[in-house]
């Protein structure tokens, strides 16, 4: 077999003062935000070609962040136990910080914006709180679980919210106060939660080394796939429809696995282990609009795979463990962060073996940050 053509030829990079814990793109791909274990929050504004430190180093970590899909807000949270919010002012304008919202629930590390508008779900201890961008306030009502919320996920249509804790995943419709939450029992704690794009499948990566899958909009009985070498710490759905179901990638210890459904029922799911990394796989993510998968590892590499699990390219940083990664919504740029504060931005050419929908690619301009 001829070696696959290199997908990545160049890169941008930069440095923060501490381990990078989370990265997120705005929906239009013009802004990129990064959070660190030292509490820094860095914002890159590609159109203006500048970068701004929205929050300097301090003695408390930030662990989760994200832009509201309507582009109005940026959120971050972590060790301080407060919800931090900024109003985005458009390119070249410094975002305006809101007063921090105290949650009194300890370390915050689970949050997700609804895919439409500006409604944020936030795990705060045993509750899921909602911050409403229209009211610019936390909603009074909250959903209570029996155990600490470890992960939250919205269905693609924004109708249903799922929250994982030890022993169960709770599902409910936040817009319908009369709706009784649905409880899906699990044998252990769910640490990674995700809905397929069509909203028919809900997946939960479990602490006990299993993967739970609920079919039919989570109305059906859950399937459990056991035997992973360790906790299933990260998962990602491909947004391209498959014959029966889209591809699902999960990470456990130093392997990533692509699951595909080849027949109906639980037995129809087939795993394709991607054995390459020599350290813990910390994150997996499919490129939006294609089946190109990226896996980030503590061994200091990011691997790019096609949907059948064939290695396309191995990207190397500078040796530090890669802790997180995030695809630009155009599916043509990948950013990754390291545990010593380094970040890399790679423009990615899609290989011919990867299914994709056509999409215009507009490269982020590189004004302010030379490698």
């Amino acid at each position, binding site marked *: 077999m001829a070696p696959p053509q290199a997908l990545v030829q160049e890169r941008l990079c930069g440095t923060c003062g501490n381990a990078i814990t989370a990265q997120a793109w705005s929906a239009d791909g013009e802004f990129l935000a990064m959070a660190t*274990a030292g509490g820094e929050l860095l914002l890159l504004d590609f159109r203006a070609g500048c970068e701004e430190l929205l929050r300097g180093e301090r003695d408390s*970590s930030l662990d989760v962040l994200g832009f509201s899909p309507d582009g109005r807000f940026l959120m971050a949270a972590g060790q301080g136990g407060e919800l931090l919010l900024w109003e985005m002012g458009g390119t070249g304008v410094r975002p305006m910080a809101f007063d921090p919202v105290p949650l009194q629930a*300890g370390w915050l*590390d689970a949050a997700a914006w609804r895919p439409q508008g500006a409604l944020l779900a936030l795990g705060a201890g045993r509750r899921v709180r909602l911050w409403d961008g229209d009211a610019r306030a936390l909603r009074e009502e909250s959903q209570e679980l029996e155990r600490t919320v470890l992960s939250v996920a919205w269905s693609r249509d924004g109708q249903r919210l799922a929250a994982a804790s030890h022993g169960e995943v709770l599902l409910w419709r936040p817009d319908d106060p009369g709706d009784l939450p649905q409880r899906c029992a699990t044998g252990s*704690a769910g640490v990674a939660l995700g809905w397929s794009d069509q909203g028919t499948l809900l997946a939960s990566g479990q602490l006990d080394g299993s993967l739970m899958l609920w079919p039919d909009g989570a109305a059906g009985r859950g399937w459990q796939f056991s035997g992973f070498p360790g906790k299933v710490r990260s998962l990602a759905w491909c947004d391209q429809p498959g014959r029966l179901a889209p591809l699902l990638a999960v990470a456990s210890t130093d392997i990533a696995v692509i699951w595909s459904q080849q027949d109906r029922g639980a037995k129809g799911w087939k795993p394709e282990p991607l054995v390459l990394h020599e350290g813990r796989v910390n994150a997996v993510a499919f490129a939006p609009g294609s089946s190109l998968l990226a896996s980030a590892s503590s061994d200091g590499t990011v691997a790019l795979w096609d949907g059948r699990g064939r290695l396309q390219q191995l990207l190397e940083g500078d040796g530090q463990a890669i802790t997180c990664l995030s695809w630009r919504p155009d599916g043509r740029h990948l950013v990754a962060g390291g545990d010593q504060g380094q970040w890399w931005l790679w423009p990615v050419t899609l290989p011919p073996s990867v299914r994709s929908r056509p999409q215009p690619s507009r490269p982020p301009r590189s004004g302010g940050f030379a490698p």
Partner: protein
Amino acid sequence: MRSAPSLAPDRERLPVTVLTGYLGSGKTTLLNRILTHEHGLKVAVIVNEFGEVGIDNQLVIDADEEIFEMNNGCICCTVRGDLIRIIGNLMKRRDRFDHLVIETTGLADPAPVIQTFFVDEDLRDQLRLDAVVTLVDLRHVEQHWDSEEVQEQLAFADVLLLNKTDLVEAEALEAIRQRTRAINPLARVIPTCRADAAMDQILGVGAFELERALAIDPEFLASDHDHEHDDAVSSVAFIEARPMSYKKLGEWIDRLVSERGPDLFRMKGILQFEGESHRYVFQSVHMLIDSARDRPWRADEAPRTDFVIIGRDLDEPALRAAFEACVA
């Protein structure tokens, strides 16, 4: 269940001290001493009751005790879910501190805390348990001696601080020392006043290192210790000069742990096997077993087997008979 060994070398893993003790035994005093002492270590502390630590320290983190049953609710498979999450986050700030101290609530069972560091793959790779330090309130311990929590905290201890010596007479101290000894002959016992133990007796103890010499209190072995208190938790120690059978002893330990795991708090052993030039070391916490082939027996030491079991409702004659049946 055998705990998988960590792949990381010991010195690269962050040491963890677990602090236990009944309400009012002086945990907060000790914590404040650890945080203010000039020992050159940057210490991060996880507490369960926020606000008690009077020190302004950014590395004091509150965690809500949350037990995760990993396997059908068996005590041997319980871990502290909050620690997995909080320490997972905290380890991204690894460069900020050199030592981690976990304060448990006065009523906490130490077992899930200890098991967390052997069961969770991330914690096992990044941290190592240094010691369980238990504070005993000399003035009040008699009143709640029969509580399960107190007995478990004594049983799991590597270091026992008999605190508030200024508030009791010498005879009372001695009586309590004897009684704690009967429960736990392995722990180092240090009488303290206002928790004033030397820092090097609390931090950097290395009690969970398998290779560390098994130090059974000679008094415990010498005395035909009294059973007047009849505590539910007790200990037995066996010393055997004849070599043991590897097969028999291994099978017995496996059987013992599977049948009595929830009652066996800790076991430790240095083992001499028939036809083996090296000594073997062994320890367990409930059903988690850790063992290794250690160094060769030295010329100046008489090879022998030392074996200690700390547990609940131990039938000493039966255990002794079963142990002796494992002699090669």
